[in-house]
């Protein structure tokens, strides 16, 4: 894959739960922790809201990678949402890998509201993972211009 070069800046869509991970990402901000700008966030109330087909949709719509982040097990604001998310994404990630979508493109993390520093680590890990597999070039939607 010729495109796997150091200039490649991946585009990553992240789904964050409002109570833990979004707050953790906010804390990284208030702490002025610097991290790569490749990740763009969609806020949902709970990781349990994230339909695994959003992952498929994001990869189709041009994302090179997707991240889902929720509260640590036992900490879900809605008690159970992250447990549902864990099952759904375990299966979806395995399935996409089976189709040839590198597992580096589909990541999940637990980031609490106090883990601003962990948020940075997660982002760095996800970004470097996606960089290592290069741009998504499998089933993304072609932009039609006519």
């Amino acid at each position, binding site marked *: 894959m010729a495109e796997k070069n150091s200039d490649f800046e991946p585009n990553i869509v992240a789904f964050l739960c409002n109570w833990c991970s979004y707050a953790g990402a906010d804390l990284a901000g208030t702490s002025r922790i610097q991290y790569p700008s490749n990740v763009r966030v969609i806020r949902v109330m709970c990781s349990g809201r994230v339909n*695994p*087909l959003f992952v*498929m*949709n994001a990869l*189709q719509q041009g994302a090179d990678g997707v991240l889902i982040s929720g509260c640590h*097990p*036992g900490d879900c604001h809605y008690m*159970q949402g992250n*447990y*549902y998310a*864990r*099952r*759904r*994404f*375990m*299966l*979806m*990630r*395995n*399935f*996409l*890998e*089976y*189709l*040839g*979508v*590198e*597992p580096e493109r589909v*990541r*999940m*993390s*637990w980031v609490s509201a106090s883990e601003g520093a962990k948020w940075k*680590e*997660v982002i760095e*890990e*996800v970004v470097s993972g996606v960089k290592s*597999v290069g741009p998504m070039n*499998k*089933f*993304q*939607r*072609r932009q039609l211009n006519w």
Partner: protein
Amino acid sequence: MVEIEKLREIAREVISREDVRQLIGYRQGTYGFRARPAFVTTPEEVDQLIFSPACVNNLATYLTLEEKLPVPRGQEPDLRKVAVMVKGCDSRALVQQMEEKAYERDRIVVLGIPCTGVVDMDKVEERFPNVLSRGEIAMEGDKFVLSFDGKREEVPKEELLADKCRRCRYPTPLVYDQLLDEEVARFADDDYSDVLELEKRSAEEKWAYWEEKFSRCIRCYSCRNVCPMCYCEDCVLDRLNPQWMRRSVDISENTAYHIARAYHLAGRCIQCGECQRVCPVEIPLMELNRKFYKDVEELYDYEPGTDAEAPPLLATFKVDDREDFIL
């Protein structure tokens, strides 16, 4: 093998009942080997019913597929029971449908067929080209017996058996009101060799494999329509607002369709193989479904369509579900 006379006798009894409005079984197809669904509403129609190794269709599909036309004003809906003939694999569709509350157990009468296996028509075609349209097939002991053009061919069961039967764990129906024959013991297990083989490939090889398969798809939706588990009133996959995928037939939309279809069957597919059987462009759909099936069994010790009381797989969790993939 089920005796046809016994089958018809029981069917006649059932359709004569006042509380049964329809019986769904098999009848001879238009051409030779083929069987097709029979929708019997009167005792007179019972004599058309058959069962043979050609009866591959999963009739559970028709329970959920039946269109409920608006009831004219002043009339009552016909809420009588529907009787259905099911093989072992098909019965799991009933169990799964009931787990999903598609109907109550007392709405159906189940005639269970302990199944010794059905043929794979493609394998027959390959072995005896162009005879499918004239002839008959029966099972005698561990052989399929094909009769056509005045000839009689005996073929070891193994050679023409459908793939799903080779790994069938439940040849005897899991749910029934009447069993039409002696129970059949489990004669095989699933080693997932097909899935394991694919899993071993590199990401590039996998995608090359699937890209070729998906690019063939003509989006006829036969796989969805024949599936006993796909019975939403309004499928999200062809809804316009929101539009999850476009209708254009290209690798991007086709892939999205196949991901969504397979994911929607995760923890629900009961391995009847109908999707793959009906695919006009020979996409190995079961290899998709079976990846989920294998993972669900390995990770969550869950086998769809075996327990109508079980909670739906993705609507439940265990606190210690695996999470080593999570950062």
